[in-house]
């Protein structure tokens, strides 16, 4: 069953068109990657879904047309956007950050249980539970961002450049944790990544964007096998 479907989505920053027609679909509990070079429109695609940029075309989530919906309404439908730059709530503690993630939920016990789950998923956060968000390292902030999204119990998670600015080993840790999360929770994922190697450890299929439109789509296995992909994104 298709959870999210994008059809010929366009997007604009003011008068500048950044997406020219992006199409993709994410199956329920599936994981899809969005690859491409800088400036291709990967982050913008996620922004179009979460409503933070003006978009055209069709965006359907769980049968509902969500194009043009406000970000908090999109979140309420079950889409959690982990933004580029991580979106850490700086003056709040780690625990408070997690609580904000669970804002829309009313089940106290469930929230507490999920906080424990997140701390188990990301042991680094457990140590820093009382620290302020601004005091965390880049990797820890990324984990916190993912955890915040998990707290919302979403059906779909939008991951934007989760490896950005992280040391390779840290990025690998983060992706391993996300992989475990995916297996244990069944959350569907749409993953934007410049580091295609990392992305392929997580996603089943991927689409490659270039200047605002799709140029290639396929399963991870297919794409990994292609010479162009290998040369452009996998280091030969």
């Amino acid at each position: 069953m298709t959870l999210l479907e994008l059809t010929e989505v366009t997007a604009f920053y003011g008068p500048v068109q950044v997406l020219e027609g992006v199409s993709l679909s994410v199956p329920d509990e599936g994981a899809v990657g969005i690859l491409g070079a800088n400036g291709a429109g990967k982050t913008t695609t996620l922004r179009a879904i979460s409503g933070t940029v003006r978009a055209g075309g069709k965006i359907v989530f769980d049968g509902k047309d969500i194009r043009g919906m406000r970000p908090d309404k999109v979140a309420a439908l079950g889409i959690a956007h982990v933004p580029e730059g991580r979106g850490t709530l700086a003056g709040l503690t780690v625990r408070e950050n997690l609580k904000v993630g669970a804002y829309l939920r009313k089940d106290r016990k469930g929230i507490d249980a999920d906080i424990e789950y997140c701390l188990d998923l990301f042991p680094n956060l457990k140590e820093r539970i009382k620290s302020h968000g601004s005091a965390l390292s880049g990797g820890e902030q990324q984990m916190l961002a993912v955890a915040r999204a998990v707290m919302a119990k979403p059906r779909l998670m939008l991951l934007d450049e989760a490896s950005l600015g992280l040391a390779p080993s840290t990025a690998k840790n983060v992706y391993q944790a996300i992989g475990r999360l995916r297996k244990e929770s069944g959350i569907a994922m749409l993953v934007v990544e410049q580091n295609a190697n990392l992305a392929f450890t997580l996603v089943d299929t991927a689409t490659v964007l270039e200047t605002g439109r799709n140029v290639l789509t396929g399963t991870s296995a297919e794409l990994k096998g292609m010479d162009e992909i290998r040369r452009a994104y996998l280091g030969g």
Partner: protein
Amino acid sequence: MATATQFFAKPWVRWAIIGLVVVLMIVLPLILPAFANQTLARIGVFAVAVLGLNVVMGYTGQVSLGQIFFVGVGAYVTAYGVNNDWNIALVFILAVLIPGVIGLLIALAAARLGGLAIAMVTIALPLIGVPLAKRLSEFTGGSQGSSARFSAAPEWTGLYDDQWQLYIVIAIAGIVFLLTRNLVHGKYGRAFAIVKGNEAVASSMGISPYRYKVLAFTIASLIGGVSGFLYMVVVQYTSPETMSFGHSITLLASMVIGGAGSILGSLLGGAYYVLAPQLTNAVDSSLTAVLQGVILLVILFVLPGGLVSLPRLWRRRKNEHRGMPAGGAGSAQAATATIAPTAPAYVVPDTSAPEPIPPTQSQEKRQDT
């Protein structure tokens, strides 16, 4: 409209217009009735005051609520000097310099703080100025104020007083306007605009926001002093009321309504300052403040560039009708000079180089750590 702009761009047309204006300025005072001359003179006085405010606020983007204070100081210095029979040239120089020095001192301190500190500090000036003027009664005449008659037309000119005063205002204001125009159209003006647009960018270009804010504020207070001198020429009386909080706000409103960051807008602002109270009083005197507040808010919402931007707006509407897209920024925010860049509200899209992202990003507010 294209043909009209081309027409006005022709050099000989410009010179003709300037010539026409000069001729009008010489001839009008002679033919207009006394009341009209006096009104025009007062408009000139406050146009200069608004111009000063524009330098620091319209062009450099620093909200200042203290401009009227400098006008008041200039007026008081003039009154004191005249009443003590000082040389009129000396009086003028002091009327300009003393507010300038005070402005410099205030700016040196206030500009150190970022953000809206200048606004937050200058708001105190009228509120301190009024009781101070009452207190220093040997200099200021206390609550009664101080009058100084020195602008009667000399015999050899054969002019009436009101004509003579208007000529003085035209001459001095004209010079100040010209000097300021050259300032803001030159490299200082460009520096001001950059500081106004984005201080971080300014420092990275080697333009110290602090120095230019101090400079702009000092120039504003110097010009305020000129306005104060002219005020005494025309009104011949000053009191603590001259620099009240209410007047301070009206002056600021006049600048915005006339057109922030615009020379012509300063003239319109001066006209607003003088004429609007008369008009709003005619509507309903107890509603004056309400109307002024409403007008200011309406302008900020509908015409942020002030009255002076009306032709621009009209031209843009015409272009839109013709199918040419309006500029992306649309109607600019208030207190924005036409040359100021509009900072994008969005985070830069994928085109940014993936540098290690620090905890604070452009979408987050800065926090004190």
